[in-house]
């Protein structure tokens, strides 16, 4: 275990301690105990930043977990992991600080739940970005989905919270499952779960047919997590979570896990044409869809949610474009091809800063005014000056205006799209032109929704009647985190190369390792003024077109398009969910008739069909009537008693006789065990029979009279066939097994137990040794099942249904 392992595990350890802090120090806000953890982790991780522009040396450290399956908890820290770890811990620190003031320590506020989930998320997310093993990554990945869902449902008394939580859970976990399948395919192809080993083997497996399937499956996982079209619909509903959660999970970190995975997998799949086009098309579609949808939102958080979707699409498309550089090999490591990777990484950081601050600002507005509806808000500029300033910075950055960092990354985005459009590979010479066009169109709408948020919230006349409480500026504690993030927006805007040498270059190194020779690294220099070129003209065009649309917004708002705030794709999800529920009800009702007889028929059919099919399939029928020991006379008598009592059962109409006959069958079988010298079995059988007698006595008064049932002819025939086939199967199996034992020299497993039960387990009673030692796990699980069954009896009897409920 290295310290890096503990970086991922520390939040989980902290989460265990949260209840102690919450209940022992009830007066102190639990957040104060949580706050030092991400801060310490952040500072520790900062020490890994390579000094003085050296290339980053990845750290790899492995702890075996399930070595037999190739699953190790391997931490791998390179530029990409470091960038994400810093985001998780850095934004995490600010979010925890913000949450201390956002969620008041009132009586009955389940703060411990909140911080346990939040820490669980933090640890899981760090685990995702730090682990090199795909299975470990998957486990942490699903944990982030779980934590996210729990956090969305934090105020679970609200119907919408539960709806949003379920939706995000269903969509992201389905994607995660598909991703697991993709990982398994990669394992089949390479024989390893280690990402680094898979990258090393990528060249040799790229021709396999499973390779593309693996890529598609993994992309489904990444797209669901990163809210790409058409899976994005969960993100707006996730806004029911408390705002610190939205700022942290649903804009800065968790939704970027999909981007992380795509960046991580670029060295594996980047050479595929499909990879480039899928990422670019889905990314750009998401970018456009998100920004257009954001324009018509009336809820500030909804607007930011769609804006996040759109920005995630932007980064996704950039990651797709950056894979084009791989087609040029090591020779093309010049800036022309790698701009896309640079833009992706740079925008990822910038988005975390400005969107984080904007979410926090919206949280403040919600907290201080009691509403997030832009139809009610207005004129907050003078009342909340600090909030206004931070928002202005964030919005200007998001809209892509100088001198903020958003301008720089938007410029590099335009450059990348123009570069890619001018390439002559991957059919780009014919189709490439639409990339910059779409990029520009989406940017116009981005500008528009930024303007809407600014104009509708802060300008205009302040109407005190719209609010339920007295509106004033937020307390200092709430403002600290957004101010820090806003400060970073300016800092990175003014001095972008602070980031370039420290973190962007190592991250690009992990996304495009193939373009570098040993010891080399990318050289990145970001600056504001490139002269009058296409990019600056595009930005100016965005401002003018966006302003024109904003000014004419009144006319637009009358249209049908504008009045549909909800995403039309939600209807698809809702109907799928409804059909799933009704469909499973139909299936359940069809088979669960409530009659024991039917269930016996199902089981008998299944067992005998499976057994008989296996015998036919492998042609294993064999009858060998030689090598028989003489059967003593008393065996004939015992068997005759057994046969007669069994055959009599169906013809008896008196229940007492019925019970007695079943008892006879049981006791005769116990006798058979005695004859065949199995004292343990005989004892057990006798005891079970005794207990069953008591049970029959108890339930006797509940049982109805045996009525003459009018069973249809065909039903009788089916029952007879089923019964006969079970009998035939058992007899055939017995005969064949006997024949096989004498024909071939198969050693029965009992020989092993006979030889070893005393030497290996120190017991002379083989049956008991098998039960407690050799097959101890079976026994444990059996008693577990028995325990569950007993609890079911309690549930069924003591909490029985009254008859009007549905399953």
């Amino acid at each position, binding site marked *: 275990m290295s310290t890096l392992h503990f970086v991922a595990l520390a939040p989980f350890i902290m989460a265990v301690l949260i209840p102690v802090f919450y209940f022992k120090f009830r007066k102190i806000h639990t957040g104060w105990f949580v706050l030092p953890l991400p801060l310490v982790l952040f500072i520790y991780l900062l020490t890994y930043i390579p000094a003085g522009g050296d290339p980053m040396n990845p750290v790899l450290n492995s702890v075996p977990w399930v070595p037999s399956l190739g699953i190790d908890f391997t931490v791998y820290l390179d530029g990409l992991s470091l960038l994400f770890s810093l985001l998780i811990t850095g934004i995490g620190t600010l979010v925890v600080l913000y949450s201390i003031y956002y969620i008041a320590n009132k009586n009955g506020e389940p703060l411990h739940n909140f911080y346990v989930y939040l820490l669980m998320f933090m640890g899981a997310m760090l685990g995702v970005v730090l682990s090199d093993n795909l299975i470990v990554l998957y486990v942490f990945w699903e944990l982030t989905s779980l934590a996210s869902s729990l956090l969305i449902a934090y105020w679970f008394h609200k119907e919408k919270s539960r709806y949003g939580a379920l939706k995000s859970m269903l969509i992201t976990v389905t994607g995660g499952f598909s991703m697991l399948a993709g990982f398994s395919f990669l394992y089949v192809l390479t024989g390893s779960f280690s990402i680094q080993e898979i990258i090393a083997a990528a060249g040799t497996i790229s021709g396999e047919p499973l390779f593309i399937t693996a890529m598609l499956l993994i992309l489904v996982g990444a797209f669901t997590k990163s809210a790409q079209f058409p899976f994005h619909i969960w993100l707006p509903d996730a806004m029911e979570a408390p705002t610190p959660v939205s700022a942290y999970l649903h804009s800065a970190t968790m939704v970027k896990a999909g981007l992380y995975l795509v960046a991580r997998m670029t060295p594996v799949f980047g050479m595929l044409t499909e990879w480039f086009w899928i990422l670019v098309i889905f990314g750009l579609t998401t970018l456009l869809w998100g920004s257009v949808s954001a324009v018509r939102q009336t809820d500030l958080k909804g607007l930011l949610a769609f804006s996040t979707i759109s920005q995630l699409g932007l980064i996704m498309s950039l990651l797709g474009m950056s894979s084009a550089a791989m087609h040029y090999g090591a020779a093309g490591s010049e800036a022309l091809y790698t701009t896309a990777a640079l833009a992706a990484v740079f925008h990822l950081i910038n988005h975390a800063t400005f969107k984080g601050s904007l979410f926090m600002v919206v949280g403040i507005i919600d907290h201080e005014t009691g509403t997030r509806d832009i139809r009610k808000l207005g004129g907050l500029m003078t009342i909340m000056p600090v909030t206004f300033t931070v928002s202005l910075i964030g919005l200007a950055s998001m809209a892509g205006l100088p001198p903020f960092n958003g301008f720089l990354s938007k410029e590099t985005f335009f450059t990348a799209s123009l570069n890619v459009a001018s390439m002559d590979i991957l059919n780009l010479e014919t189709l490439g032109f639409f990339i910059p066009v779409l990029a520009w169109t989406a940017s116009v709408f981005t500008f528009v929704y930024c303007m809407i948020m600014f104009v509708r919230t802060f300008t205009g006349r302040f109407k005190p009647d719209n609010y339920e409480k007295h509106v004033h500026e937020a307390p200092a504690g709430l403002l600290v985190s957004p101010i820090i993030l806003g400060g970073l927006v300016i800092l990175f805007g003014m001095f972008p190369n602070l980031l370039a040498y420290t973190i962007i270059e190592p991250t690009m190194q992990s996304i495009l390792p193939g373009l570098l020779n040993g010891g080399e690294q990318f050289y990145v220099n970001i600056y504001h003024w490139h002269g009058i070129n296409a990019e600056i003209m595009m930005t100016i065009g965005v401002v003018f077109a966006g302003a024109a649309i904003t000014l004419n917004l009144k006319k637009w708002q009358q249209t049908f398009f504008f009045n549909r705030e909800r995403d039309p794709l939600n209807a698809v999800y809702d109907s799928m969910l409804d059909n799933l529920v009704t469909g499973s009800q139909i299936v359940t009702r069809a088979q669960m008739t409530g009659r024991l007889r039917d269930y016996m028929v199902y089981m008998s059919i299944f067992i005998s069909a499976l057994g008989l099919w296996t015998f036919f399939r492998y042609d294993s029928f064999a009858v060998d009537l030689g090598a028989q020991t003489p059967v003593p006379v008393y065996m004939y008598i015992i068997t005759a008693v057994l046969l007669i009592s069994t055959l009599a059962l169906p013809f008896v109409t008196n229940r007492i006789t019925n019970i007695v006959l079943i008892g006879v069958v049981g006791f005769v079988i116990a006798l058979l065990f005695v004859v065949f010298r199995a004292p343990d079995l005989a004892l057990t059988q006798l*005891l079970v029979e005794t207990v069953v007698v008591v049970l029959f006595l*108890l339930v006797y008064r509940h049982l109805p009279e045996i009525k003459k049932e009018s069973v249809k002819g065909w039903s009788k025939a089916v029952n007879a066939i089923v019964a006969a086939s079970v009998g035939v199967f058992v007899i055939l199996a017995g005969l064949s097994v006997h024949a096989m034992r004498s024909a071939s020299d198969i050693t029965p497993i009992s020989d092993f137990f006979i030889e070893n039960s005393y030497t290996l387990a120190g017991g002379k*009673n083989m049956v008991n040794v098998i039960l*407690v030692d050799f097959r101890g796990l079976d026994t*444990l699980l059996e008693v577990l099942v028995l325990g569950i069954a*007993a609890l079911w009896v309690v549930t069924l009897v003591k909490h029985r249904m009254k008859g009007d409920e549905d399953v």
Partner: protein
Amino acid sequence: MRTNFLMLHTITRIVSFIVISFSVYLFFAGHNAPGGGFIGGLMMAGALILLYVSFDLTTIKKVLPFDYTFIIGLGLLIAILTGLNSMIFGDAFLTQYFDYYQIPFIGEVELTTALPFDLGIYLVVIAITLLTILTIAEDVS
């Protein structure tokens, strides 16, 4: 007329103790002779059921104030913990150990970790049998 169960009660008092002792014997003998947690547990359950049947539910509930749901959990916990015990020494889950010890006056005795595991099974079997039967017996409707 008041029914008198004197004979039944007297015999039950004696017989149930014999059966209970036999059940404990079966439990301990299990490793080397017929018996073990499962059989011993069923035997014990049979003895207790005999008590419940010949006396009445409320009387025996006073005598044996056990919460059988709790005992199911306790038995499972004991079984799982003995399984986890071997993991501390780096062996697989549920690896059992045994050794022989000289104990004064008794002589050589074999001690195994299978015994506490079997104790867990023993408890679970007793508890589920009684819980099932008592739940159905108490059902008035």
